[in-house]
């Protein structure tokens, strides 16, 4: 007695459900409005520098330049500051506090500059003293406020509060005036092609972030 040949392929289906993940877009329109202004139209000009005046193997620090920032808000409110580099990728030292000065004729990075805020050189409303604070978490957490100068960055938020040691971030401010220090360093001459007139071209946008 021979058995029948059986060859089966059964599809037992556990339907393969599509995998999903959710996207959320959040934001809030606020009536708060703060207008920042920089002295001198925000232009810092180092004039013409001879390449012979640049160090061959080390960077050359240029003289410090100062600017005044004023921020006027339509009402007291909490805000922070951040600066975006419009020449991103051209800073020869990589850090969020270093901003690029563009590239030379052969594509080398010309140099960097940084802008620092000094709480001692900052006047807020009618306060006698203000303290500086920073957040690297987009405003979720702030470090203890103190009088140390702070370099503005492209990702971290910078703010001021009237409470020394506070970790609550900026306090409500209506007007702010601060003297900023700009420090620029040119790349070592041996890293650059300075055979032609080489413009330094730094461009950044300082923005108010409403909290």
């Amino acid at each position, binding site marked *: 007695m021979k058995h029948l040949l059986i060859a*089966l392929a*059964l599809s037992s289906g556990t339907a393969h459900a599509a995998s*999903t993940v959710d996207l959320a877009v959040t934001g809030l329109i606020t009536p*708060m409005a703060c207008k920042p202004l920089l002295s001198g139209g925000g232009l810092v000009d180092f004039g013409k520098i001879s390449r012979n005046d640049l160090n061959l193997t080390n960077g050359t620090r240029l003289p410090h330049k100062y600017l005044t920032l004023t921020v006027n808000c339509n009402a007291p409110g909490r805000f922070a500051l951040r600066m975006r580099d419009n020449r991103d990728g051209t800073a020869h030292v990589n850090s969020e506090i270093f901003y690029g000065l563009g590239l030379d004729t052969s594509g080398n990075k010309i140099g960097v500059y940084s802008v620092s805020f000094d709480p001692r050189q900052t006047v807020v409303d009618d306060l006698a003293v203000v303290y500086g604070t920073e957040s690297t978490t987009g405003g979720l957490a702030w470090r203890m406020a103190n009088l140390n100068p702070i370099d503005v960055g492209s990702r971290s938020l910078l703010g001021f509060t009237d409470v020394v040691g506070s970790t609550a971030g900026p306090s409500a401010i209506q007007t702010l005036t601060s003297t900023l220090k700009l420090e620029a360093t040119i790349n070592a001459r041996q890293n650059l092609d300075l055979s032609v007139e080489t413009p330094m071209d730094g461009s950044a946008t300082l923005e108010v972030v409403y909290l």
Partner: protein
Amino acid sequence: MGLKPALLSASLLLGANAWGMDECQLNLSETAVDFGLVNRAVSPIAAAEHLLGERRLSLTLNCPTPTDLSLFYRGLAAGTERFQFTGRGSYSLRASDALLDGQPVELGLVPGSGQPPVSSATTLRWRPEHGIVPMRAGVPVIGRSLSLQLEVSAWARQDALRVSDTVTWDTSGVVDAVHTGRSRELRLQARFAPAACTPSLSNGGTVAFGKLSVMDLNADKETALPPRPLVVSVACDAPTAFSLRLQDNRQGSATGPGDDTTYGLGLDAQQQKIGRYRLVFDPARTTADSFPGLYRTDSPTGTAPWSSASANPLAIGASRFLGFSTSAGNTSGPVPIQQLSTTTSLEAVIAPLGTLDLGSEVRLDGAATLELNYL
């Protein structure tokens, strides 16, 4: 004195006549061979077939009297050497270590019952339509007990591994000891599961625009917000072809001409539309496995026909399934990918402030679901 043995043998003979061929016993140590869940997460070598595994079982055939212990295996042939394991796979049987009445024997391969063997060896591939018979010195021998080892190997075609639902292969054949009337069914099984892919979004899937000042938004026309990057990642346990689409959970709240690729940002206190956004995918900002170049392709249904693969950015839609291909102009759809990472651009537009009720809180509230579909 001489009479007694004769009497004995007479009684023995009587006993032998009482035994029938039904008294032979055929046993397999396993009657079902399970190759288990086939693991697809192996290096994608371009082999035509994938070895599912090898299993061993032993066979014993015992008869009361010396008998022709030839064995045939009845199963659908897949060629001359193997048997069918569904239409997309095959298996083979190898017999070895044969013992006849306790003594090692060779095995001969016979094309039919009673026919002369075409080959013989101690280890033999049991071919379809052929039987195996114990042999000694090139001659088939009979005996009372035969034991041997069977090694079952199974293969699946490479394309059989790619399934979108769980699939079970179930096939059987019959071991037939033709001269004893005994037979045993041997069952083979294997399971295939689809690869699992997990999509994820950077920053927990939240694009936070924070607080937007009215001073920075236009009163009498729309305001485009700076585009925000959003990294879409897909991790699969093995290269898998898939497509993505985005479903709007704020349907009907998008401003502008109704378009499959625009998504709503919710409504203000007066039920007015706050704005809209799109999610733009860019092959130039995409990496997948170690492919040197990627192109995007899309389909309104998630199945063929697929658009000609292009290097240009494209916004995803609810009816615009997006996938990635590795050759420009290709229309076969998405290729199997194990790890994908693409930086998309979320472009949001806020309605003119004049159309919104600014007396109450105006909260941007976009919500969408990114769906991954297996192909």
